[in-house]
Each structure stands twice: as C-alpha cells, then as structure tokens.
C-alpha cells in the first residue's frame, strides 16, 4: 500500500480521472437514454461497445483508416444494428415485467459475445496508432486518453445539443417524461424508441472506437462496461441525463484515487463497492430522481 501522496500524484489522479470520466459519461448516456425512454436496462450495452471497437480495429487493420476517422462509421454501423435489435426483439418486452427485458437483453448480450468470439477469435488485438504521452510539468497526459476525452466530450455535447434543441430530441425527452402524453401530442412513440436505441448503441460504439486506440480489445471486454455504465447512471440519478456527466466524472476520479492507494486487483473491486455504498446511502443518485 502506497502511503506517501504528493501533490503531483494528486494532480495526475485528477487529470486521469477526468480523462476516464468523459468516456464513462458518454457511454453511460446511451444506457441512461434507453432506460429513461423505455424503462429498459440494456444488458447488451457493453457488448455493443465491443462491436464498435472491432469496427474501428478492422477499418484500421484492413483499410488503413485513421481510427479517429472511423468513429462516425462505427457509430453509424451500431446505430443501424441498434435499430434492428429494437425493431426485431426489444420492442416486444418494453411493457413486460422487468425480468423479461433484463433476460432478453442478457440473451442478446451473450449471443453477441459468442458471435464475436467466432468471427474475431478471442485473441487480444491492439491498434498501435498513438502512443506515449505529453508532459505537463510533473503530470503525464497519455495521448490516446487525452484525445479520447476530447472526442467523448464533443460527442456528448452534441448529443445534449440534439436532445435540447432539435424537434426529435425534444420528442425523445417528452417520451421519457410520459409516453402516454407524448403519444397524445402526436409523437410516434415506436419511432422514438427505434431512434433512441440506435442513438444509444451509437454512443456505445463511439466509446468502443476510442477504447480500441487506448487498450487491447477482445470479445469479452464489453460486459464490465454494462456494469460501469449502470453505476454511472446510479451515481448521477437514474433517468437524469445530465446526471450521467457527473456520475461519469465521479467514477473516473474515484477509480483513479483508488488505484493510488490500492493494488490493481483491489481497485477493480472499487466500482462495485461504490455501487453498493450508493445504493445503501443514497439510492436516488447524487443529483436526485427523474428530471429530464
């Protein structure tokens, strides 16, 4: 256990925490959108992120495409896949008991992971595109993580702009406030559900693309992201979209802080302990309940 903590180390923790937090916030926003609009927790969110990562990997490995330029491609591919999943399967369980939607998306999730294992094998794959870090005094700024943070923050900002300003975005928020009232106002709720699922999958895909440049990827990488995304929306308050930003930052910072004083193995458990603590102390999340 490391006892001496210098200001430089603390600064490093804050910087790394924010870099990770922006990514968490973007990916979790996708999960929060689906939960807000359909009251469904999409267990397959992480595996969709994994597919986004592979899209970027293969475009880089076989077509030589700059991984950052492939973000729109992987988002588009997963947007389409998300719509297909929603249209074919998920829409059937939206009004069913929670157990049905959890089990259904769990089934989709394990099928996707197995398909990825068959198609891509379980080998670790890495994109060696950008390595090293920039020095800012005593603080090191990992290049791939810093760029990922900028992309994640921009994409998240665009998503919020879309939700706040456009008619479609307003329709999505209206549906998440009250499906019946939205329907009465002439909103095609089925279509909103389709677009929401597509959008959420695209956000996960963007996360996957960015992660692929940072660390080696493999088919089972996604599962932990479903869990962490859920933790982020619990931290921020379920159904509260801006809460996802706060939750993401918090998770990033807490994880980095923990890695300062704990061994690697134990810091993996930090996210879990955090979830249990939040549920004990403040189950409505830090920003409070449902406001959209």
């Amino acid at each position, binding site marked *: 256990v490391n006892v001496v903590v210098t200001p430089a180390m603390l600064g490093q923790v804050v910087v790394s925490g924010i870099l990770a937090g922006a990514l968490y916030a973007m990916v979790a926003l996708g999960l929060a959108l689906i939960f807000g609009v359909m009251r469904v927790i999409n267990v397959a969110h992480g595996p969709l992120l994994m597919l986004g990562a592979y899209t970027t990997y293969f475009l880089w490995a076989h077509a030589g495409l700059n991984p950052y330029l492939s973000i729109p491609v992987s988002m588009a591919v997963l947007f389409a896949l998300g719509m297909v999943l929603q249209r074919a399967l998920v829409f059937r369980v939206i009004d069913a008991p929670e157990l049905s939607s959890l*089990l259904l998306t*769990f089934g989709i999730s394990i099928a996707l992971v197995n398909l990825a294992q068959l198609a891509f094998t379980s080998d670790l794959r890495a994109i060696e595109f950008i390595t090293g870090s920039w020095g800012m005094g005593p603080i090191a700024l990992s290049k791939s993580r810093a760029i990922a943070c900028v992309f994640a923050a921009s994409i998240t900002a665009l998503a919020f702009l879309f939700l706040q300003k456009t008619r479609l975005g307003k329709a999505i928020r209206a549906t998440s406030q009250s499906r019946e009232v939205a329907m009465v106002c002439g909103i095609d709720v089925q279509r909103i559900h389709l677009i929401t699922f597509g959008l959420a999958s695209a956000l996960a895909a963007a996360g996957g693309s960015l992660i692929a440049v940072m660390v080696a990827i493999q088919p089972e990488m996604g599962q932990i992201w479903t869990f962490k995304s859920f933790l982020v929306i619990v931290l921020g308050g379920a159904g509260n979209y801006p809460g996802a930003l706060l939750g993401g930052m918090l998770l990033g910072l807490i994880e980095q802080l923990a890695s300062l004083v704990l061994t690697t193995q*134990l810091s993996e458990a930090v996210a879990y302990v955090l979830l*249990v603590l939040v549920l*004990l102390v403040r189950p409505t999340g830090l920003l409070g309940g449902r406001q959209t």
Partner: protein
Amino acid sequence: VTGQRATLLGLVVLLGALAAYPLWGSGYGVRSMLQLFMWIALAGSWNIISGLTGYVSFGHVAFFGAGAYTTAILIVKASWSWPAAALAGGVVAVLLAVVIGYPCLRLKGPYFAIAMLGLNEVLRALVSYFEGLTGGGLGLSLPTLDATFDIYYAMGLIAVAVTALTYAIVTSRFGLRLMTIREDEVAAEAMGIDTFRHKLYAFLLSAVGAGIVGGLAARDQGYIEPISVFPLLTTITMIVMALFGGKGTVWGPVLGAAVLFVFQEVVWARFIYLHQLFFGAIIVAVVLLMPRGVLGLLQMKYRLPRTI
C-alpha cells in the same frame, strides 16, 4: 387424490432407482448423473429468487464459487472433512447473499440484477488478491480422495432438498407473498407484505444450495482456480435451464436441467464453441415465445396446477 398418490409412488420409485444406480452404473454414468444433480440444484436455487420474486440474479455463480473456495480452503488449510466443509460453503454463500441483498433488494428495479452482474468480477479480483489463502491464479489442489459415490449421494440429496424446498415455499403463504411481489410489488406492499424482508429471505434460501453445491463440486474436481469456479457460463447455464423448463415452478428447473443436460452431452459437446450462442438464442426465444417454459406448455395442455 389417486393421481397424487401415483405421482408420489412414481417419485419414490425414481429416487430408489437413482439411489441404487451407482451399484450397477458405469463410472461415466455415475459421473454424468452427479453433474445432472448439480445442475438441478443450481437451476432450482436460481429459480427460488428469480423465478418466484422476479428479481433476476445474473451472478448466481458467485455463491457456487464462494462455496467452492470456502470448502477447498477448509479442507486444505484446516483439514476439515468434506461434508462439514461443504456445509460451511453454504453458510458463507448465505453471508455473501446478506451483504449483497441488504443494499440491493431494498430497492425496486434493476439494481439487484446489475449488482449481481458485476459481482463475478469482484470475487475474481478478491480471490487473486488473497493469494495466501486462495492460491491466487494458481488455484488450490485438494488432497486426493476417491469419494465419487459419496458425493453422488450428497449431490443427489441437495438436488432433492432444493426441489423439496421450492415445493414447500410454493405451497406456503411465504411463497404466495413472493409471487405477489413478482406480479405487482406495489400492490404487495399495499397489502402489508414486508417486501424487502421477503425478497431477502428468498435470496438467502437461493444462495445456500448453490454454496453447498459449489463445495461438493470443488471436492469432486479436486482442484479449483478462479476461472473454473466463477465462469459466467455457469450462471448462464442455470438461467437457461430454469427458463427453459419453466421459471417459478417446482418441476420446471428439474425438467429444464434434465433436458438441456442430456442435449448438452449428446449434441453440444461437439459444438462447444457455439454454446453461448445457443444459450443466448434459447433465452431470447423463451422470453418472447414461451415465457412459462416447457412446463408452462404442458400445464396448459393438460390443465395441471400452474405453480407445481
């Protein structure tokens, strides 16, 4: 009443045959039956929390693994006898269930399901952290002991006990309250049911069997490591078996375990790499097409009671 008596007689004959099986069965046969008992007990355990209350446990293998490690550690480091060590595995699984269930089951909604989904990772991390006790990634080797027959009976006993427990719950007021929670938790609360306490008790009951089974499996295999006792596939398998047979019923998990286990031995052994894809497809198909499982179809056709 005669129908009931016939069923009871059939059950007694079946159990008698299973008890006598090791006397004439082949080594492979006994081993397979032992595995089947294990799956019946695991699917039945999952069914008690998820089938009866509707709260999905995505990490039931945690109790299996906790039981396996407890048993192995007690045998290796404290020289306990394996039956006592396996029972201790059940106790530890219950304690773990209290720690998880207390914060997560107080709330309605998906919190419990996702908390269980993440539990695996944590336990695996803890096992590798406490290397001195658990052997870390190297695992733990148990002293050699040929107890296949004894474990066969012990595993069979657990399978029977879990099924009998489910029967006792389903036919009791306690079970009725659990099913009320599943159908409408707000209404259950309004009727004065202490939903949190009921969910928690169901969860503890569903953990104990899985913990003991984990302990027996550890003794049977003679060697455990993190990957072998916390595989996601074990959770998936018990969910698929319970769903396929019919969740929330007494015989559903038994039927599901039997059918899928045989199928697995005969057909899937050749397509091991497609395992999870099949299971995923079965889950999706059961949820969408026959939410009450195979038993539900039979019950509809032959007008049988819906919870047995």
